């Protein structure tokens, strides 16, 4: 199990050091600094073994988090824990930076004591932790006995993510389907790989302990229902279903129920949380197509023409469109002409950045650039990194649709109809690259 946990600033100074096991000595803190943070070569692995101690590290802005162990621990768990720790810290004091860590070091020690015991991760849901570890010191003095046992039962209980007795005047639900489309396309326009990784993010403001059921146009479910009910029904509704390759759920979702019935039922945490993540690869709507044309004119000039085509309903608008066209390292000057938006050569990024604020569906736009190059005697050819693109569209590129989200709270007197529900679809670019 985890033997020790250290947080360093970018210089390698220790900000937090907590040792859980006897086999991790004080020198481990220095070993990591010397061999990884101060290492002359770029670190080639997130796991390093230094003098028989294994270190796992992640970096958040300029802060290093490292876990040390001398046993055969579950490596995946250690990384998951490090991310979780980042989540918890972010939930408490925002961005993880040297300043914030220093300002909250007492709190961090307190958290570390709670979420990791003898190197075993314990309940680390920020919602639950916030009930008894607070930045203002401790609530314990003012707590009644009932409150205390409520806290402990929540921390250890089956529904560790929600406390009892939540009340809202207005029961409201916000549901965001956020997808990122990832694409790798060959210069000839052939899709080398494409997938959508999506998240269903919820904000729930519901009273009591509501039982929720979430439904979407999952192909397996629709097909099953089509078979069970009359065939007409399925055909009439004409609903398109999507094939989900795989999905993972927040721990509130009853996985065994999903496995057997493929229904998603849960008691939601209060406030913000991510209900599920999913991945699809079939029938993805690729919102944009990038057509590159690169021509080398002699040794000192490069002509680049890039066309982007929007490929969705004309009534919809894409936003925040950004195309990054990489340029060689020896670029000396760039002349740009674009039909829409603004384009700029950014020497620091070795790229031409072309920004378009809005673009409707079924449109086309183009940029041409003349790149002048300094003559070099470097034999190695320019590697031609891919052209990448960012955008935001108001639909789900995977085709996912929310069919229902039902809320039942038998103990309180509100019904599914009384809950105000909001659904929003956001499609974003993930790694959206076209080779040139």
């Amino acid at each position, binding site marked *: 199990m985890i033997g020790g946990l250290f947080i360093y600033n970018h210089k390698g100074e220790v900000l937090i050091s907590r040792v859980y096991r006897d086999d991790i000595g004080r020198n481990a803190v220095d070993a990591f600094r010397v061999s990884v943070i101060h290492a002359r070569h770029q670190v080639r692995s997130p796991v390093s073994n230094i003098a028989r101690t294994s270190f796992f590290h*992640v970096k958040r802005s300029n802060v290093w988090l490292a876990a040390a162990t001398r046993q055969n621990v579950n490596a995946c768990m250690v990384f998951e*824990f490090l991310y979780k720790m980042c989540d918890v810290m972010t939930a408490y004091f925002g961005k993880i930076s040297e300043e914030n860590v*220093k300002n909250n070091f007492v709190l961090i020690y307190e958290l570390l004591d709670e979420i990791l015991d003898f190197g075993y991760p314990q309940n680390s849901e920020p919602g639950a932790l916030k009930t008894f570890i607070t930045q203002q010191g401790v609530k314990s003095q003012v707590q009644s006995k009932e409150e205390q046992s409520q806290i402990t039962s929540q921390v250890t209980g089956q529904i560790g993510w929600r406390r009892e007795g939540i009340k809202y005047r207005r029961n409201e639900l916000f549901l965001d389907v956020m997808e990122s489309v990832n694409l790798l396309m060959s210069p000839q326009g052939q899709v080398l790989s494409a997938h959508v990784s999506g998240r269903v993010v919820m904000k729930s403001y519901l009273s009591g302990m509501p039982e929720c059921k979430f439904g979407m146009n999952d192909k397996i479910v629709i097909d099953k229902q089509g078979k069970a009910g009359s065939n007409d029904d399925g055909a009439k509704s004409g609903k398109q279903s999507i094939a989900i390759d795989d999905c993972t759920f927040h721990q509130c979702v009853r996985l065994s129920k999903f496995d057997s019935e493929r229904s998603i039922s849960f008691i939601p945490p209060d406030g913000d949380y991510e209900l599920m993540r999913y991945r699809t690869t079939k029938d993805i709507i690729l919102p944009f197509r990038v057509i590159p044309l690169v021509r080398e004119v002699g040794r000192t000039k490069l002509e680049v023409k890039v066309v982007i085509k929007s490929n969705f309903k004309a009534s919809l608008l894409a936003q925040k469109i950004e195309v990054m066209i990489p340029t060689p390292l020896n670029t000396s000057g760039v002349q740009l002409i674009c039909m829409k938006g603004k384009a700029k050569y950014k020497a620091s990024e070795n790229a031409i950045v072309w920004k378009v604020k809005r673009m409707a569906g079924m449109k086309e736009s183009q940029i041409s650039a003349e790149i002048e190059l300094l003559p070099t005697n470097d034999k190695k050819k320019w590697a031609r990194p891919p052209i990448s693109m960012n955008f935001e569209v108001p639909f789900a590129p995977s085709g996912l649709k929310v069919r229902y989200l039902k809320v039942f709270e038998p103990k309180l007197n509100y019904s599914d109809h009384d809950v105000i529900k909001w659904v929003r679809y956001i499609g974003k670019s993930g790694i959206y690259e076209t080779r040139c």
Partner: protein
Amino acid sequence: MTDSKYFTTTKKGEIFELKAELNSDKKEKKKEAVKKVIASMTVGKDVSALFPDVVNCMQTDNLELKKLVYLYLMNYAKSQPDMAIMAVNTFVKDCEDLNPLIRALAVRTMGCIRVDKITEYLCEPLRKCLKDEDPYVRKTAAVCVAKLHDINAQLVEDQGFLDTLKDLISDSNPMVVANAVAALSEIAESHPNSNLLDLNPQTINKLLTALNECTEWGQIFILDCLANYSPRDDRESQSICERVTPRLSHANSAVVLSAVKVLMKFMEMLPKDLDYYGTLLKKLAPPLVTLLSAEPELQYVALRNINLIVQRRPEILKHEMKVFFVKYNDPIYVKLEKLDIMIRLASQANIAQVLAELKEYATEVDVDFVRKAVRAIGRCAIKVEQSAERCVSTLLDLIQTKVNYVVQEAIVVIKDIFRKYPNKYESVIATLCEHLESLDEPEARAAMIWIVGEYAERIDNADELLESFLEGFHDESTQVQLQLLTAIVKLFLKKPTETQELVQQVLSLATQDSDNPDLRDRGYIYWRLLSTDPVAAKEVVLAEKPLISEETDLIEPTLLEELICHIGTLASVYHKPPSAFVEGSRGVQHKRLTSSAGSGESVESPDTGSAAVSEAPPTVIPSQGDLLGDLLNLDLTPPTSTGPPPTTAPGMQLGAMDLLGGGLDSLIGDESEPPPIPLRTDTPQSPQPPHQSPSPPHYSPTEVAPGNHTGSLGGDIGGSPAMGTGFGAPPAAMPASFNAPISGGLDDLFDLGGGGGLTMGTYIPPKSVWLPAMKAKGLEISGTFVRRSGVIQMEMTLNNKAMSVMSDFAIQFNRNSFGLAPAGPLQILTPISPNQSIEAALPLSTVGPVMKMEPLNNLQVAVKNNIDVFYFSCQYPISMLFLEDGKMERQVFLATWKDIPNENESQFQIKDCHLNSDAASNKLQGSNIFTIAKRTVEGQDMLYQSMKLTNGIWVLAELRVQAGNPNYTISLKCRAPEVSQCVFQNYETVLKN
């Protein structure tokens, strides 16, 4: 909040100031001071001097302050054990507090104070907390037992905490269960044989129930624990699998991977024809792919594990090639791992895509990545034959880029492609030679030299090229030196006239001017070989090379099995067993997969295509593995030693050394003491145990571990099996027995044998010289084989033509087609003085290790005496192997004759034989060839005969004898048609003598 100010106190006299503040009356000031102390502690300052003052602050209602003091205590209690006692009272009191959070805090902190004196005081509070009404306290107390066990295991056992802990597995609260499982698993690891985690179906059921309810971390503990359980039968393992599969949809990748571990392990138990087995295989792919969209660090762990899973069960991910394509922004460690998996998944179906990708990668920036991509192209060529041509042209394109490291890497892989597809792509040699100058890495230089040597006859200026390397011979690395030596010897054997000077030069450089024993030894071997028998040298050095295997870098199967049991853990990230990086006893038990009873094939996947790969042994050249196996059994002990019990210790190198050194041990002196080589003095009554070849898994002629004699010899003498024939380790040592006097009269029998007068006159071929004196430092061996009343004997005449006395004889055979092996030691009791000759008979058994030889009846023998080890090969008449009970029933004969397919029939002519059919039948019977029936058709006698070989193979024959015609026709039918040729030769010799 500006707690950061506490980090900036660096003034002198700080400790003194802090002391004052800690003793202040004001609560706020006290708290501030403790914070400062903790901050100093964090940055590594020694604040242990403040121990009593900090401990004084412990008695407080302020929980935050209390926690800080506890933190301090945990850090310094060990260095101040006496003072730590002061804290005990507070702990005991806190354990009785009304607030469960405080009770838990006390019990949690207590366990972290590693002071013996204190632990005793803690037993009572801990016992109470284990039975606390509040689950939060119980779950904390469960972990505390593990802590206490780490400090004082005996105490925990004496106090009966382990039983209480076991009871907690049945607790109503899932988190308590999870922590109890974690604690028990950890304690059990340090007591490998205690049945502490007594996993039975009932507890498993409890764990599976808790699995559905506890936190993500708890699920990991439980799944990791489940993985250690061995279900009783396939039904139980299926039902566990069914309850574990829902975990594959968990958001926490550690839960997913631990579930994968359980499934991979329990799947071994499931019969493959089960529908559920196929369903399970399908269910495993999507979650593994999803792991690749996690954060890069997790991706890395996942990829390392997928690498193992793909080797074990390639079918799971065979359609998922695309997800392993490298993204431009992937961290380098993710890129390299993806590349590895891409090659493993490459197949004919996806090769075009893979190649296009690899070509793309070869133009990237990161040098390691580019190199690996180039290497991957070569591996694709070797793996997927259809793509070889495209791979080669891609590699040539890359060579044209003239990027130095790309060129070098490409040459290294092209060498492997040449090995795999001989005589196919040699046209590119010219292009390669153009880049000779730019090669500066040993591996690339060695590869190029190998190519030049191997194809010397096609490269006009091969001698010039090699000569240019020779100039800086001593500055080259060993790898290059060895390769250069071999290449020049090859060149010499191919073009002897022009290169004599060159070969002289390299041999003297290697033998006289070098300090490297490997190089020197190889030089001497070549030298002797070339000076004594150039023909043999040619056979050895230019022997045909075995094909290189398609899969490289495979993890050795037993290690792979162990690693599969450790999926998700560090071991799976390092690809090393835990014992390699964990100290002490903890977690170093070797885990093995348990497969369903009696089905060794359970490893195989339902689709046979790619599955076979997973079973392939890691050795790339199987024959080399065999040879190494032989060497293990090498036994050249002096006859006097009775020897210790058989061992197959991996002392391969020593054994090999002895082979080369030639009786070194006896030269050194003490004969009665067995030399420190792996001994195997028993007769091979039992089949040899399978050998784990210790040779490096990725093998190519240039990649030979220096210092490893066997490796370098087998590897570089043309990377050939020639070792078996040339220097071949005649294996399976079997000292033989013989008493010289007995053989005296036997010689006479030879003459009688030809007479045919005796009914049982077994034909015994005359002795022939097997080992001429000039090749064996004066020892001449001639011999023959006889079969007498069911016992095969090797009869030898040993003639000492040297000037000195010879003694300490021992003999060994290499593996051979029929498993011939000495049945006892070679007994030559008296030393042979100069010009004396001595007879020896060695009884043979046929239960030795088997390897097909060419020709089939070839036998390679090593004889050792006090001077050296000598090797020779001889051929034995196959009739030695015909059993006395080789007469088949007539009905059986008929049925068998019909049953054997016609393509197994071979026909031969025996010319100039003047016996009639009865005489022939008689004569043959002496050699255990039995006539079952005789038929006369149109003046032609047809004899139907049968014989049975020692390994149970039956040979059926039809011999046609026509009166007056000296030419016989013989048809042989056998299920193993390879033996026919041998049997025919035997007929011929028997009938003509």
